[in-house]
């Protein structure tokens, strides 16, 4: 049994939730699903995630799962148009911003996470600009492949760096 935690600075803003709902709804509207099914899937995913996050259990770390599943469904079914690509990236960024604004954590989480989210937004912007400048289908796939390879390289590099850091800590201990 553990004691509940009452943090006087606890916060969380509805603004980020509204922003995420708007972004996901727009992404759903330009997606390939008929009528309003797209926005409905996105909103339901976000609401489920929000409810999950409010539960005071240890499993709340996986609270974004329903929203991520909804985003995945929308992304896979979306047509290959520039507006869908841009809104997809924007919806993901809005979701991350909402994630940073956790009501169980001190208020201002979104503001503190801006520096990390800005680099992701920059990457999305660069990728989208590159796609606009290379309008052919093969060019798009080429950019996609290059981006995937770059991400995997960064991932591998950081994982190796972290493993080295851990081993040096263990050696010094």
């Amino acid at each position, binding site marked *: 049994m553990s004691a509940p935690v009452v943090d006087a600075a606890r916060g969380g803003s509805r603004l980020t939730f509204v922003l995420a709902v708007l972004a996901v709804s727009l992404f759903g509207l330009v997606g390939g699903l008929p009528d309003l099914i797209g926005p409905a899937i996105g909103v339901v995913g976000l609401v489920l995630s929000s409810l999950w996050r409010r539960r005071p259990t240890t499993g709340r*770390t996986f609270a974004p799962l329903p929203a991520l599943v909804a985003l995945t469904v929308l992304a896979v079914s979306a047509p290959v148009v520039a507006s869908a690509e841009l809104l997809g990236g924007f919806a993901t960024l809005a979701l991350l911003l909402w994630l940073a604004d956790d009501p169980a954590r001190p208020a201002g989480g979104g503001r503190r996470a801006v520096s990390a989210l800005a680099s992701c937004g920059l990457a999305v912007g660069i990728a989208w600009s590159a796609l606009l400048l290379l309008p052919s289908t093969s060019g798009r796939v080429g950019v996609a492949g290059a981006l995937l390879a770059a991400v995997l390289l960064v991932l591998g590099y950081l994982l190796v760096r972290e493993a080295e850091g851990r081993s040096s800590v263990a050696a010094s201990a």
Partner: protein
Amino acid sequence: MDGVNADGGPAVGIRWTGRAYLLIGVGSFLAVAAVASRSAVPLFVALPLLLVPFATASFAQSRSAQADLTWAAGGVGADVDVTGELRGSFEGGVGDLVLEPFLPLGAVPTAPLRISRGREVIRFSAGWRLLEPTIATVRPPRVVWRDPLGLVERDVGGARPGLELGRYPAEIHRLGAIRLDRTIALPGETRSRRVGAGGEFYGIREAAPSEPWGRINWRASARVGRLLANDYQVDLTGDLLIVLDVRPCSSDRTLDARLLGIARAGVYGIADALFHSKVRVGYATFGEFVEALPLSTGRGHRARVLAAVAASRLSPVAGPAERCAFSLKRFYRPGLTTMVVSSWTGDMSEELVPYLRRQGFPPLLISPSPLPMLEGTGGLAPDGELLARRLELVERRARLSETWRYAPVIDWNDYWSLEGLARFLRRPARRRVS
């Protein structure tokens, strides 16, 4: 010290939480789906999901944070009110520092962990109720820096000492006012006064050639021009040996450990109270072998005894009772009043008191009862539970009555009261006290 983070330096090592792996997993799936479906839309969704854990990890690596903890325990009896604060340097503010909930073993929360944050300080308070008397060092709470997205975390360095928590029955505080010589069953334990090396200041005398430097009164010596030494009046109201039985007595090690915890808290309180009345106290534990501290008094010895009591742990092997009785003769003179604190749940504990008696140590047995702990653990219906409790009580009474042939026995049933011991010390009679 157990549970102390005293490295003082910034902690390193970044851990990713399950949420980071979730984002990376979903992002990887979307990236693969993008390539497979020749569509860039999933890739645009995947890109932030894949990048953000590494971006936050990079920021976490560059942030320095250090937090020193000061905390204290208040409250009365079983209720513990804990207040404390974390001070230090937090790059980026205290908003991302997480103080994880903490609770010592054998306590239940009575108030939530309340946290308030200043610019460079985090204050917190918590309320617990202890289920049993306890002498323990509470491990300091874990403090981590966690990014706002909840993707990475790292431990925060700094000095965070454990919290010394000592709660024992209130009656023990009154033991110091009781003349211990009334408890002595054998001759030789009479109140006496003598001059010696420790105790209250008594007077000044000429220093002997072999006088220890610590006993020289330098101010007086300078005044008269020759070496003078201090004498102290040792006020003895009786000597007492406390023997803590740390042998495993039952097959249930958890039960033994809990009973030993209660016994330890009782011994701690009794020794502390008796030192206040300048009683010479010896302390011994008996597990497989006897470990003893000699009879003495004074602040130094008090600190030694209390530290030894707090450090007493359950022995993995139980030694024979006669070994305890014989070994004690090597450390203490026979005839010394001996207070045995034993959890008394097995047959071999019964042998300890007769052996001590036969070796010349008049014992008094304090026995924390396991029955309150066993209450409701049998999985019986309420009627059956009641009957089982009565039968266990009858059996325990029968065992204790056998021991009464050799020594007075204090049956410690209510863990938060040692009124039985206090009453016995006021009117020591060979009769049952519970």
